[in-house]
């Protein structure tokens, strides 16, 4: 008989009392700010510009006096402008594609890699993974950080790792069968794709030994979760990571599936209103802003993630005291102001779900032909969306328009169009909003 698997990977870090945690966060934040000011020219300039003394921060809330760091800052600092250690102390580089050709290259010290492994091991244990599991990693092994983070975490935990990397779905399925993979690591989109290909090959869920899906890399709904769980017979766990900050291992669900625990002893989390840039009260949706507290090579202060979420109140039955955030609601880049009204796609989601029972793929186009904004909602219809039925439904378009107008305060022109090219590609995140006014 083997003993029950541990409930926590690092109970000292995951179950600290809040007062103790805040002391640790303060100590780490103070040291981080002194180090970034001393070692990173970008931060020295930023802090000096506003007359901020890095030795002047006395409370965690004082961080609100500091400016944000954005993706544009990282792009401008390419290649070494954000490094806090000399290159000879760097043991790894990872890159994030960013938008267009602008690359961001992140650095990791030896300690950073070790911390990363432990933080990811925490997430795996929280999701129910044990050292006896066989973990198949279908993220791409390359410049992107994702696959490596999970890989290190799983090895640290002592699980058996199969680094299949991305692509070749048939081979993925064969390995999954032959080696009795118990944990699938993938994007939610790829998990569904695997299920699809398996079904086409006549393989039902019974052909596999899957138990847990550690999924992440793109926002996904509870419906998609249910579908993945039913089709692959596993428990699907949501994970949050961001290449600029670390990769995976920043936050993740425990088996309670009631929000993602943030590794707060290593990342200070704030939620701000993406328009006013002021902090929002707990519970309210806003953009996640993160400060690294222990990173040596590539520390980031108040990094705007552009990811929308909210701090969840209350304690989690799992015993972790780390704060939970809601599953991602989208990107703050997608928030848009139309004729002075702030519109977020999640509100559009709600209206469409109400009418259709599920959220179809859609895009919002905003133009300004004259002086006024004009918004068009393109609903991309595919086979699974009962295209014909929708067309037959008299007044469907009218209904959507009326509901959007009354609930969002914006009048949209609504069009039914064909599927987007490239839709369904694993890992692809395409914007829900196309703003044609910015020219």
């Amino acid at each position, binding site marked *: 008989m083997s003993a029950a698997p541990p409930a926590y990977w690092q109970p000292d870090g995951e179950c600290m009392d809040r007062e103790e945690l805040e002391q640790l966060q303060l100590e780490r934040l103070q*040291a981080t700010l002194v180090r970034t000011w001393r070692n990173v020219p970008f931060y020295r300039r930023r802090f000096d510009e506003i007359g901020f003394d890095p030795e002047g921060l*006395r409370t965690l809330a004082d961080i609100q006096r500091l400016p944000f760091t954005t993706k544009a800052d990282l792009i401008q600092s390419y290649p070494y402008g954000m490094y806090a*250690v000399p290159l000879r102390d760097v043991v790894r580089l990872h890159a994030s594609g960013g938008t267009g050709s602008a690359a961001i290259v992140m650095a990791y010290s030896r300690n950073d890699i070790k911390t990363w492994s432990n933080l990811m091991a925490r997430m795996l244990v929280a999701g129910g993974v044990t050292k006896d599991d066989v973990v198949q990693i279908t993220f791409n092994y390359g410049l992107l950080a994702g696959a490596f983070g999970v890989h290190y975490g799983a090895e640290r935990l002592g699980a058996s790792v199969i680094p299949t990397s991305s692509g070749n779905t048939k081979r993925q399925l064969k390995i999954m069968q032959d080696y009795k993979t118990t944990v699938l690591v993938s994007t939610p989109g790829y998990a569904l794709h695997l299920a699809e290909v398996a079904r086409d090959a006549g393989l039902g869920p019974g052909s596999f030994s899957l138990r847990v899906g550690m999924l992440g890399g793109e926002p996904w709904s509870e419906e998609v979760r249910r579908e993945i769980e039913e089709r692959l017979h596993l428990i699907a766990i949501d994970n949050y990571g961001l290449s600029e900050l670390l990769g995976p291992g920043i936050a993740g669900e425990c088996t309670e599936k009631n929000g993602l625990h943030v590794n707060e002893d290593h990342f200070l989390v704030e939620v701000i209103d993406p328009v006013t840039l002021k902090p929002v009260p707990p519970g309210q949706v806003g953009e996640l802003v993160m400060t690294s507290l222990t990173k040596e090579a590539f520390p980031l202060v108040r990094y705007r993630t552009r990811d929308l979420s909210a701090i969840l109140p209350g304690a989690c039955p799992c015993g972790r005291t780390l704060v939970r955030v809601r599953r991602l609601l989208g990107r703050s880049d997608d928030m848009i102001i139309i004729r002075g009204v702030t519109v977020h796609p999640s509100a559009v989601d709600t209206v469409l779900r109400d009418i259709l029972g599920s959220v179809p793929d859609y895009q919002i186009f905003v133009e300004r032909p004259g002086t006024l904004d004009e918004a068009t909602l393109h609903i991309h219809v595919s086979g699974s969306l009962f295209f014909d039925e929708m067309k037959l439904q008299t007044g469907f378009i009218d209904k959507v328009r009326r509901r959007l107008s009354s609930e969002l305060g914006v009048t949209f022109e609504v069009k039914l169009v064909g599927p987007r090219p490239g839709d369904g590609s694993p890992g692809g995140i395409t914007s829900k909003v196309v703003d044609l006014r910015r020219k």
Partner: protein
Amino acid sequence: MLRIRNLDAGYGSLTVLRRVSIHVKPGEIVAIVGANGAGKSTLLKTIVGLVRPRAGEVLFEGTDVSRTPTEAIVRAGCSLVPEGRQVFADMTVWENLLLGAHVQRGKGGRAGLQADLDRICGLFPVLAERRRQLAGTLSGGEQQMLAMGRALMAHPRLLMLDEPSMGLAPLIVRDIFDIVVRISAAGSTVLLVEQNARSALKVAHRGYVLETGTITMQGTSEELLANRDVQRAYLGKDANEESERGAP
């Protein structure tokens, strides 16, 4: 056990510590490393009330002691072994130890006192051998042991050691740090400051790097020992040495 937030302290117009925040949990050995003059001793003196903080809070077991007299802090269970031992040279080893028991006066009586002496002699057998000798005639290592033994007579829950390895031969330094581990194992929490970063971090669970009065790094001892800045500044591994070693 100990929680310090935003501590500023100094002497006269001189500011030595700037916004220092550290904590020590029960049962831990925590090391503060840094160069000479970084403010390490001042930090310990401020905790025990010999230097008054200008700002910030010092919580010892949940109580703010930043305005508490030294004697009361010691009685509350926080003892300091000062830099350079400072034993009473003209008194015997035994008398020195008994002085350490004065805050315990009235507790435990004669039997308690004897038990304490036995406990100290268990840790430092050499002190029993030399009990009638004048402290001034002891070697540096023995004086360090006597100073530690004297502090332990007060049953501190937190034992603070200021540069325990200073001026001692390498072999003796090893003995002293072995004893630190045993003191910790016997139930005392230990906060020590050291220029000898390697030895201190080898026995400590966690550590802080103090540079010109400010904490610049913190982490587990393992992390600090693996940090290249710490290696270059405090462990005597410089960049040239590294690159030479790496050369074919």
